């Protein structure tokens, strides 16, 4: 436990030092809550670069050195910018105590839920840390590298399985969703109203059986949900509070999110097409967000192309090339989006993206009708019946209906709705390239829906804020 705790504390410190650089934008609670995911995101980026360049038994030591240098650099930046005030140090210290308490609590519970996927992620991930190239490369054809990299440090922790990070990050997700929903509603409502509304909304997520299962489940979905939520939340805030803080949060979150699942970069591209091509976005801000993401992931998928085993799982060499092509295409579109000639197209990008996805789903449904319709049936039946959601989606539909009838317009609510619709369409379209989705809580689409649930709550909170009077 001790070494696992120390590792979490170290990652937290990295994240906290990063967030503390933006203390003028991030309030103390938000800084504390986002420190852990930001720390793991930086860990994932460092690990991807280290193992991307050189994969051997020494790589783990190199990674530790890089992390130590990152910590030092962030500490120096805090000192030189004058961000490390007495209050910040007190806040950091108090947060470390709380995190230690959470880690001890999780360690006392000793609950872990697993499926075959968990065994693969953990075993192959552990092999990465041992520098065992042959024994780990299959994992890169199944998932993105971030979670396997987290397991790669198991050998340093005197444990046979590193499981503590999962419940701790899950609790952090619940806390982040609660706090962000609370702050959004608090902008227009009283403390009591905001507290009650946030509690109700977060309960919709936290009280479903499937979510509780995922809190302890060694897999990628809760972590994906966490980063996707932070990414979209940062995009919402970027429009309200221009500056570097939320832009950097969005960038780190989108990179971490894309490092978790193979298809995640596609979701990022769709979200960016829907959100960052509104008139409110400047060309420069758009490029600042998109270009680093494109460069990093083109490089990573090019590297993965050579890592893939002869008999890969989901990600084949052809698919890796296709993802690179999509990334490059999106990057080029972002670059030329500044041209006056393309102005009329760029302005309509969100709408065109939505229509494009609808069109693709119709084409896919016509060309592979049995396959696609059985997938659609599974998605719907999992949400309503077989996905272990209980009444979650029924109550969400009830609230959404009520809020729809009492709606008032808000720009961010419009594009949030588009993000959700395009997300679901993309989940549906992805069925074309795989075995059909099936019934049951651990079905891939059901888990992708779980990933989007915090965003649904964010959307509802934006709506509740101005329509609470409906009740």
């Amino acid at each position, binding site marked *: 436990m001790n070494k696992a705790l120390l590792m979490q504390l170290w990652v937290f410190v990295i994240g906290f030092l990063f967030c503390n650089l933006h203390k003028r934008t991030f309030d103390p609670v938000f800084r504390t809550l986002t420190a852990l995911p930001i720390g793991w995101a930086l860990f994932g980026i460092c690990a991807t670069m280290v193992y991307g360049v050189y994969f051997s038994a020494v790589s783990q030591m190199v990674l530790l050195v890089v992390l130590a240098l990152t910590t030092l650099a962030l500490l120096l930046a805090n000192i030189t910018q004058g961000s490390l005030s007495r209050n910040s140090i007190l806040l950091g210290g108090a947060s470390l105590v709380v995190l230690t308490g959470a880690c001890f609590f999780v360690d006392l*519970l*000793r*609950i*872990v*839920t*697993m*499926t*075959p*996927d968990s*065994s*693969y992620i953990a*075993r*192959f991930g*552990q*092999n990465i840390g041992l520098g*065992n190239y*042959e*024994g780990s490369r*299959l994992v890169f054809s199944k998932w993105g590298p971030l979670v396997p990299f987290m397991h790669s440090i198991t050998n340093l922790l005197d*444990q*046979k*399985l590193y499981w503590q990070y999962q419940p701790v990050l899950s609790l952090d997700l619940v806390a982040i969703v609660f706090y962000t929903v609370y702050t959004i509603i608090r902008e227009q409502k009283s403390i009591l109203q905001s507290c009650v509304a946030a509690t*109700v909304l977060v*309960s*919709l997520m936290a*009280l*479903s*059986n499937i979510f*509780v*299962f995922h809190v*302890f489940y060694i897999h990628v979905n809760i972590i994906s949900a966490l980063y996707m939520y932070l990414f979209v939340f940062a995009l919402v805030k970027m429009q309200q509070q221009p500056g570097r803080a939320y832009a950097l949060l969005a960038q780190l979150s989108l990179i971490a999110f894309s490092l978790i699942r193979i298809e995640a970069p596609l979701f990022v591209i769709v979200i960016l097409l829907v959100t960052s091509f509104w008139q409110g976005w400047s060309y420069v801000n758009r490029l600042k967000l998109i270009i680093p993401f494109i460069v990093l992931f083109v490089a990573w998928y090019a590297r993965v192309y050579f890592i893939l*085993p002869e008999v890969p799982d989901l990600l084949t060499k052809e698919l890796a090339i296709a993802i690179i092509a999509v990334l490059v295409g999106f990057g080029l579109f972002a670059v030329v989006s500044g041209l006056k000639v393309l102005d009329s197209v760029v302005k309509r990008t969100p709408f065109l993206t939505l229509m494009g996805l609808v069109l693709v789903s119709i084409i896919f449904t016509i060309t592979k009708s049995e396959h696609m*319709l*059985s997938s*659609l*049936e599974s*998605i*719907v*039946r999992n949400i*309503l*019946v*077989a996905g272990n959601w*209980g*009444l*979650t989606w*029924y*109550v969400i*539909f*009830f609230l*959404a*209906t*009520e809020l*729809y*009838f*009492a709606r008032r317009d808000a720009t961010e609510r419009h594009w949030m709705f588009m993000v959700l*619709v395009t997300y*679901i369409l993309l989940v549906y379209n992805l069925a074309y390239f795989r075995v059909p989705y099936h019934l049951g809580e651990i079905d891939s689409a059901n888990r992708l829906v779980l990933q989007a649930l915090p965003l649904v709550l964010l959307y509802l909170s934006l709506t509740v804020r101005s329509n609470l*009077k*409906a*009740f």
Partner: protein
Amino acid sequence: MGAALTSICMLPMPIYASSPEEIVRQVFMKTGTLNLVMLIACLISARLVARGPSLGRKLLLGLVLLTFFASQGRSVLHTYRNTDLYQYRKTMALSDLQIVENLYHSRLFSGKNILPLLVADYMPQAQVFLYDENLYPKELLSWSGRNPDSTFVVGGYQSTMDASFKVACFGRPHIIYTGRSRAALYIATPFSTYEKEEQVFLMKDALMDYLVPGSWRVSQHE
């Protein structure tokens, strides 16, 4: 748009389910008849009760949320009490979770293919003797995290179980693990038995394979 999406989503259900009645039956069974009836009633009444803040609306929302909290709380509690999903795990190791805790069986690590997990968790030093070089693909052996060339040795030992040794093995604590595979494997328990071994032997009889700690064979021959 929301309504359109919902209709599109609902469209294939009657086509693929055995009957619409079956879907309705399943929905009611899984979500609880009373809960669902209450929610639908609330949804309809919400349209009938006047818009804007009113006691009626507050009561309606209260009823919906009460139903939700009661139903979900009961469901989580039921899972906690009647399954082993959220129980305290004694040993946090992949091999234990796969074999002893028996949560789910993975396709790649079932039956005798559990060997890489056992080697990774409990055989940090031991040499593992295999009776046939084609028994495991080299890739699978590399999943143990150790160098397969120096860890796994093919042949050089008597691999067939004799009757008396078999009786002795079955007299010791053990588990016979099959999982999703058809090839069962005898494994000594607790798995920490293997931790101090320098040699571990994979032996066989007509029924299954046996993962035998080296010290057992020595004592048997003595």
